[in-house]
């Protein structure tokens, strides 16, 4: 029989199943292969907080969404064209997000009586039939049965065989999107080098899925996606935490300082610890501390000792680290605090994304305690942001907070990566040793940037004491003098403010430099704002997008830039935190758009909101 190959511009696929079904891996493998075809793409993994939530239930559904196409892709897509549902719960949880007349690929073995009951369908319900009635195209495949049949001869146990069923689905999708199997075959060869039976079973199932598409008459169409018009260069696919790790390692090499990472496992930041622990041959010291407080305090100790000191965590961890961060601030030592934000408060939504720790970053410490804050905006941007946070901390002798979030951390995108030689060195100036025993070393003497010297233990002639008590200017001795405290408070503020003179001015990311509407953003809303502003510009509106890397201090031209527009819209995945700060600082009205559901803002909803503001002109 003949199949028609159809060319299409963009596709959004969601893989959904039990958290034990291997959907994250399936999605990742399909993503890597998609990247190789030259598509632009964005992904959004969405998994339950429990490692193995009860099988077959709605709570246990794990999803991986991929949006790819032959044009610039900014977001993982609002709605999906194709839903792969490994069981009834996966269908039920995602039915609402399938495009009208979209496609459902259902693994029918996951729709038996038990699964229907677990997914809380009424007795006798036929969800796949209902979906057809609603106009969806539903392909029903007995994936488990087909997998078992194709592995009849395999020596593996039934459980292990069933674990291959995600390969069947993957193989089928490769057929559907006109791919070859090579990238996944290579992956399997690497992964199961030492387990030949498992390797063979996975290969077989992968191919069976592919051939199933080819030979089954139900499927008449395959889809071609042309490569996207991307900048020339060499690319790879990268996830946020992965890029962040590489940014830190790069900063360590470029500053010629050993990197110390003190951390305590916490979702969604643990992958930074895992990643750095795998780079020991770069001299990276990872220290899994007994708790969050020990992690930050060990980081202070390492900074005092002259390492590039980093600690990473998520919001609840930052709450615990507050006093330790304050110590670093008082000691004026360089260290980076990475916060991969998740839904809060308290334990909140560990696996869901949110931008709700901004006020914590600004104000979450006792005393007047300003710290620079930097935010990353996308998975690949984590590399630059991490490098920049290290540069800033080393050159301004203050702890720096780097904000990422769960969406960025686990999302992936193509990355035109830099060559190491093109990345500038980071200059570090330790206070040099001295033979002069009589000249008293002044640990809190400052340069024109208000920065004190970094005098590390082991340096001849610089023995001195520091501590969390207020310091006397210059000498660093303990001082309770009222005027001195006011002076020191102001100088700590001035030191942070001064950074504005050493960072670039804020640029417009897209659109004109003045006009009716400016959409201001920070962090992971970058993609969705880009796509909305792009679309509205195309429709002829006077609109622009500016995205903040530097949140404290703000770029020196920010006030002027904001005032060049009639209205400023600020979308955030929180209850309006940056909006509060912008209003306070620049005394301008800000239109908030807030979504606080643990998921990214969708293009449709933001376009609706921003579009309606544009329409008033």
């Amino acid at each position: 029989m003949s199949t028609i190959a159809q060319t299409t511009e963009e596709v959004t696929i969601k893989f959904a199943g039990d958290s034990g079904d291997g959907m994250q891996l399936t999605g990742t493998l399909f993503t890597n292969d998609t990247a190789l075809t030259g598509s632009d793409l964005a992904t959004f993994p969405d998994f339950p907080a429990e490692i193995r939530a009860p099988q077959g239930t709605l709570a246990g559904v794990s999803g991986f969404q991929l949006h790819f196409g032959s044009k610039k892709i900014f977001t993982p897509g609002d709605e999906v064209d194709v839903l792969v549902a490994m069981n009834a719960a996966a269908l039920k949880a995602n039915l609402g997000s399938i495009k009208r007349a979209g496609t459902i690929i259902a693994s029918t073995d996951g729709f038996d009586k038990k699964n229907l009951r677990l997914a809380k369908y009424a007795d006798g319900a036929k969800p796949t039939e209902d979906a057809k009635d609603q106009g969806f195209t539903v392909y029903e495949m007995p994936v488990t049965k087909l997998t078992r049949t194709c592995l009849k001869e395999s020596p593996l146990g039934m459980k292990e065989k069933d674990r291959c069923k995600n390969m069947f689905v993957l193989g089928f999708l490769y057929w559907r999107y006109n791919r070859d199997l090579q990238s996944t075959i290579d992956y399997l060869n690497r992964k199961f080098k030492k387990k030949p039976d498992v390797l063979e079973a996975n290969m077989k199932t992968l191919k069976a899925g592919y051939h199933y598409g080819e030979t089954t008459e139900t499927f008449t169409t395959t889809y071609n996606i042309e490569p996207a018009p991307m900048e020339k260069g060499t690319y790879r696919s990268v996830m946020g935490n992965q890029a962040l790790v590489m940014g830190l390692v790069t900063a360590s090499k470029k500053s010629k300082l050993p990197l110390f990472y003190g951390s305590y496992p916490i979702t969604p930041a643990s992958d930074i610890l895992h990643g750095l622990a795998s780079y020991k041959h770069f001299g990276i010291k990872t220290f899994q501390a007994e708790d969050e407080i020990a992690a930050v305090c060990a980081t202070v100790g390492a900074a005092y000792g002259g390492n590039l000191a980093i600690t990473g965590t998520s919001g609840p961890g930052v709450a615990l680290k507050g006093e330790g961060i304050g110590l670093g601030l008082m000691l004026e030592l360089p260290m980076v605090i990475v916060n991969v934000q998740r839904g809060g408060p308290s334990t909140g939504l560990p696996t869901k994304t949110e931008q709700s720790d901004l006020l914590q970053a600004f104000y979450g410490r006792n005393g007047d305690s300003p710290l620079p804050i930097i935010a990353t905006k996308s998975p690949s941007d984590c590399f630059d942001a991490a490098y920049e946070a290290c540069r800033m901390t080393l050159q301004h002798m203050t702890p720096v907070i780097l904000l990422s979030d769960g969406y960025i951390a686990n999302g992936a995108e193509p990355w035109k990566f830099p060559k190491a030689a093109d990345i500038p060195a980071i200059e570090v100036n330790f206070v040099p040793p001295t033979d002069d025993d009589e000249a008293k070393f002044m640990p809190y003497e400052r340069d024109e940037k208000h920065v004190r010297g970094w005098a590390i233990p082991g340096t001849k002639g610089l023995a001195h004491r520091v501590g969390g008590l207020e310091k006397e200017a210059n000498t660093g001795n303990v001082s309770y003098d009222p005027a001195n405290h006011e002076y020191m408070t102001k100088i700590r503020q001035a030191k942070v403010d001064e950074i504005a003179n050493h960072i670039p001015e804020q640029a417009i990311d897209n659109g004109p430099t003045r006009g009716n509407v400016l959409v201001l953003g920070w962090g992971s809303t970058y993609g969705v704002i880009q796509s909305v502003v792009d679309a509205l510009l195309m429709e002829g509106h006077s609109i622009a997008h500016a995205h903040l890397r530097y949140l404290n201090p703000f770029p020196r031209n920010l006030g002027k830039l904001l005032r060049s527009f009639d209205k400023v819209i600020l979308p955030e995945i929180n209850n309006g935190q940056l909006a509060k700060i912008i209003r306070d600082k620049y005394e301008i009205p800000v239109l908030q758009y807030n979504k606080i559901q643990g998921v990214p803002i969708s293009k449709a909803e933001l376009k609706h909101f921003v579009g309606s503001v544009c329409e008033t002109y």
Partner: protein
Amino acid sequence: MSTLPADNLVKKLKAKDFATDQDVRWCPGCGDYSILKQVQSVLAELELNKDDTVFISGIGCSSRFPYYMETYGMHSIHGRAPAVVAGLKLANPELDVWMITGDGDGFSIGGNHMIHALRRNLDINMLLFNNEIYGLTKGQYSPTSEVGKKTKSSPLGSLDHPINPLALAMGADATFVARSMDRDPKHLKEMLKRSYFHKGTALLEIYQNCNIFNDGAFFIFTEKKNRPDTTIYLEHEQPLIFGGGTKGIRLDGFKPQIVDLNEGKYTVADLWIHDEQDQMKGQMLTRFFDDPRTNPAALPRPFGVIYSTERPTYDDMLFAQLDEAVNQFGDGDLDAMIAGGTTWEIK
């Protein structure tokens, strides 16, 4: 470590060279003075280099200590000194790192860090100034205060059962556990030296008198006239003798028993011989913890090195791992890391 120049131009430091220009702010008569003095003279006697020596403390009266030492130093935050020390030692393992803590700092607010520091076994020295009271916050009961202690925060007597710091240390698999006192400078100096020469985390508990809020808490052990009967000075491979040579400890099965050496029933040959490396017996010695004021049959309180063993230090192991990683994967190559496994070209 930055080694001293080979020529002898470097002048030998005296104890007073380790004193800073800061006024010492402890209350007059505080036991901390004695400890400061012994530490300064031990550093001089050991000819330690002040540029390679660091004192790190937490919060409390004792934690003011670094301000008075002409070395590197950090007065950190409450209870967290063990963590700061860990980061510092891993940043630069060549440093001689001393940690100063108290009973509240080390065993209440910082109890968790203490446990993990002891099992982790970095090559550091910990001095625990135990005064069984909160001095800096003006006299509340501490985790080592006795039950029933009347303080401002416990007017009807404290309900908390006290921590036995050294028993806890043994439970955490500490590699060096010792006890000394502010009022026996000679012994204190000896113990400081033993701590310094131990490779691994050395915990030295020092009974320290807070003459303002808990005066005399340890006098039953530390006053010269009381010492013979209430304390036992441990020496490696020597029998457990006290009472001015009149009494000893023998083991009756697993039960330590006080015996009178004058009675004629037992001789020195029957006594428990102290073995610093015996962990089981070390555990038992930390359990010599009854208060002779409330229990006349109490075993004498041991002073000296209770337990000492060698175990690879965390710092050594971490750096060995870094070397091993280089052996295995070669020196880290940035370009290879950044490119990762699979790349593609857009032309």
